[in-house]
């Protein structure tokens, strides 16, 4: 007597490999989304910065994306606080606004290349050139206005919430994707 066992359908091992492949595809998609989110944040800062003339883009360059690939968790993060605190420590006040220095504080530095603010570039009483502290030639500046809030983190989260809802909602119902600002 002979018994023949025939497996019908996808073998478990092949099924497992298909799942892994889909996860790899999804991980690549999330990584691409991370890059796009980083670019969006940089673009927001570039577009909305107050002093464009002479700016070196230090804050934009300090914002990068980071991947944590753990067994049960795949995370893509934008901006590392420890890195920002070293490379662009003003990242916080540029986002939330406020007095960087108390009003009336006197500081020494220069605008633009080497001088006082160019009156031709003046906005509503505020020059538009970048300001360098403590390098010659030195001119006395008096702090009169607070830093205005750019909210680039919140604006990027707003954009991401729109993008994710449009493109991912259909096939990520089983996966939790949330946008939040982590301090």
């Amino acid at each position, binding site marked *: 007597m002979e018994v023949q066992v025939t497996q019908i359908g996808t073998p478990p091992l092949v099924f497992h490999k298909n799942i892994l492949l889909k996860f790899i595809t999804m991980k690549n998609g999330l990584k691409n989304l991370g890059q796009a989110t980083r670019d969006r944040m940089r673009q927001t800062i570039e577009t909305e910065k107050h002093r464009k003339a002479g700016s070196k883009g230090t804050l934009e360059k300090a914002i990068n994306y980071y991947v944590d690939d753990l067994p049960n968790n795949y995370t893509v993060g934008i901006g590392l606080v420890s890195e920002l605190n070293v490379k662009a420590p003003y990242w*916080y*006040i540029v986002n*939330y*606004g*406020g*007095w960087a220095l*108390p*009003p009336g504080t006197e500081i020494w530095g220069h605008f633009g290349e080497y001088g006082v603010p160019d009156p031709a570039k003046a906005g509503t009483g505020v020059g538009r050139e970048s300001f360098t502290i403590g390098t010659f030639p030195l001119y006395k500046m008096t702090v009169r*206005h*607070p830093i*205005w*809030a750019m*909210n680039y*983190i*919140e*604006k990027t*989260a*707003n*954009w991401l*919430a*729109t993008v994710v*809802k*449009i493109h991912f909602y259909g096939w990520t119902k089983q996966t939790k994707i949330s*946008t*939040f*600002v982590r*301090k």
Partner: protein
Amino acid sequence: MPSYFRQARNVELSLLYYLQTNLNTDWAGTTTAKTFKQVYAKDVNLPIVCVRLADTNSFRKEIGSTTLEDRYLLVIDIFSTSDGQRLDMADYIKTKLADGWVSYTHSHPSGDNTSLSRTSNGRDMVTEWINDGRVDIGQDVDEKDKFRHTISIRVRHSS
């Protein structure tokens, strides 16, 4: 002939009016403002609540449709007199926002920007809570920056 404001402006002013009305009743002495310039003016005292429309994101309502669905990013900055007040005020405002609020269409007579009229036009509601936390600039800061809080929300208008 009145000059009507567009939707983005109406959403911002509707939230400002809603919070102003509630704060005047429940938290007397609170100033509401629309810009940081107003907040940091010397003649404005704490506590202050600043409401700003920071951003708008749009997407098509349906495939092939030209109608846009807008999501407004509104930022509420709280400037308090103490850390306790900061926490209480933030919690109070979140409670008020949770159920949505009446949206108005604002207008003023042509050539007259001193008077503002408002007509009820649907409701605005929070679709996402993006940020809710303390703003900590440091120790040696201006009086108005000592006890700050920020709440960022995504808002949808429904007519």
